[in-house]
């Protein structure tokens, strides 16, 4: 199936891409094309001009500066999953990247393209929201930084201006490097090697032994469409744990309301609690408490279904975070 007709321009630099955006009404940027081309084929998007930024090598980079990791907008999910720097600085990013779509999607799809598309259930949207990432956006008058909480403005709508381009995503590192717990649960974890770098505790995978749990741990769990692997509902958690007590928590859900959101009520319910299975199960029940906006539904999953599944995904993420496999 063809897309509607469009004019095609290949940008040789970020500046040229911005100039092309300014000089063409109704133009869209084309990166890997894995969000935009399917939309165009369904006639859900019909830009008159595509500006191909796929060749902009400057936007393909991963660098760690102190306690932040900066990922160029055109870095593919596959490159993020395979990056040692990412795995050391924030293993959650690597695990999520390795669980997006399938190998071919990961070879082409980019982090910038994914968030620009702003699917309410996107893996990156949910996880970057929990991680309090920020997005670098460049326009004719220079660069600005948008906090992830301000970035998503509605389904398929972002804070990126008409003539702006996303150049990078910056994510805080996790202070604790979560190791591979070997739980083969298929929630975006892959089989990459165990990373024993820089953490000083052991999980007891038998299910008890939480007394020794320390540090910051990030996890993500999702329910995906079985054929496309598009996430339907996902939950991301970052918990800061001392002596198995939750000192602070950041929890985000995707696919529940029109944008990925922080679940503040769950965060509050977890804070100060010992992270036991019972306490976690009680905390996730608060998920819909303060979300305000209407729960979305579509052909894959009704609003009622999402309302039930979302707390389960958050619970699974929390169980993984404390080293308890779920059922």
């Amino acid at each position: 199936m063809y897309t509607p007709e469009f004019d095609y321009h290949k940008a040789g630099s970020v500046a040229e891409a911005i100039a092309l955006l300014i000089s063409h009404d109704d133009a869209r940027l084309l990166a890997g094309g894995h969000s935009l081309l399917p939309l165009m084929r369904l006639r859900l998007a019909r830009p008159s001009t595509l500006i191909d930024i796929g060749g902009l090598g400057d936007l393909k980079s991963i660098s760690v500066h102190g306690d932040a990791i900066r990922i160029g907008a055109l870095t593919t999910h596959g490159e993020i999953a395979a990056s040692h720097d990412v795995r050391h600085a924030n293993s959650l990013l690597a695990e999520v990247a390795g669980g997006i779509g399938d190998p071919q999607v990961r070879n082409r799809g980019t982090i910038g393209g994914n968030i620009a598309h702003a699917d309410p259930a996107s893996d990156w949207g949910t996880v970057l929201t929990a991680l309090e990432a920020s997005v670098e956006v460049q326009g004719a008058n220079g660069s600005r930084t948008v906090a992830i909480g301000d970035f998503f403005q509605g389904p398929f709508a972002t804070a990126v201006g008409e003539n702006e381009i996303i150049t990078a995503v910056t994510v805080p590192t996790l202070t604790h490097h979560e190791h591979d717990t070997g739980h083969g649960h298929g929630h975006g974890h892959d089989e990459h090697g165990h990373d024993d770098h820089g953490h000083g505790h052991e999980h007891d995978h038998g299910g008890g032994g939480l007394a020794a749990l320390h540090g910051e741990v990030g996890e993500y769990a999702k329910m995906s469409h079985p054929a496309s692997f598009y996430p339907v509902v996902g939950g991301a958690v970052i918990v800061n744990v001392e002596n198995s007590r939750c000192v602070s928590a950041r929890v985000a859900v995707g696919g529940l309301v029109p944008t990925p959101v922080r679940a503040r009520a769950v965060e509050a319910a977890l804070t100060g609690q010992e992270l036991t299975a019972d306490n976690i199960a009680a905390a996730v029940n608060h998920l819909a408490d303060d979300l305000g906006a209407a729960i979305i539904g579509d052909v894959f999953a009704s609003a009622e279904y999402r309302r039930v599944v979302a707390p389960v995904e958050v619970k699974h993420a929390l169980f993984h975070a404390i080293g308890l496999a779920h059922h």
Partner: protein
Amino acid sequence: MKVPIKVTVNGKVCESEVEPRTLLVHFLREELGLTGTKIGCDTSQCGACVVRLDGATVKSCTCLAVQADGMAVTTIEGLAQNGNLHPVQEAFWDNHGLQCGYCTAGMIMTVTELLQRNPHPSADEVRAGLEGNICRCTGYHNIVKATLAAAETMAAAPASTTATTEATEATGG
């Protein structure tokens, strides 16, 4: 407005002018006559259209021909060297890794990359690596078996593996 592109396909430089909306899979099949690559779902789910683009497997139904400009494409037709099937092709044949064959070209292209990244995969790793390829006939069992068999042959005869890898890289622009 047509756009000029230059793509190296299976080692041969192809220059052409295409409508920007031409999908890579249509370019390969209709313009170049390389019909080994199939269109199944047409929505980047089934993997029947997988080819290698500068070495990376991609779904050619979700890639514009203009996006491949200046790059190298390897299709199923480009795997055999000097009349000898690629070890993965041999293994699919020997292990009955296909029934109707519609998914096979895409499966084989995916497996070539999988084995390049992980030359000694477990059966589970093979299954995970085939996530993007759907087969409606075999139940996957013999595809996994064929992949594991190919891994063994390629480990035992690294020369042929290297030759193919080099061929892929030589066309890598």
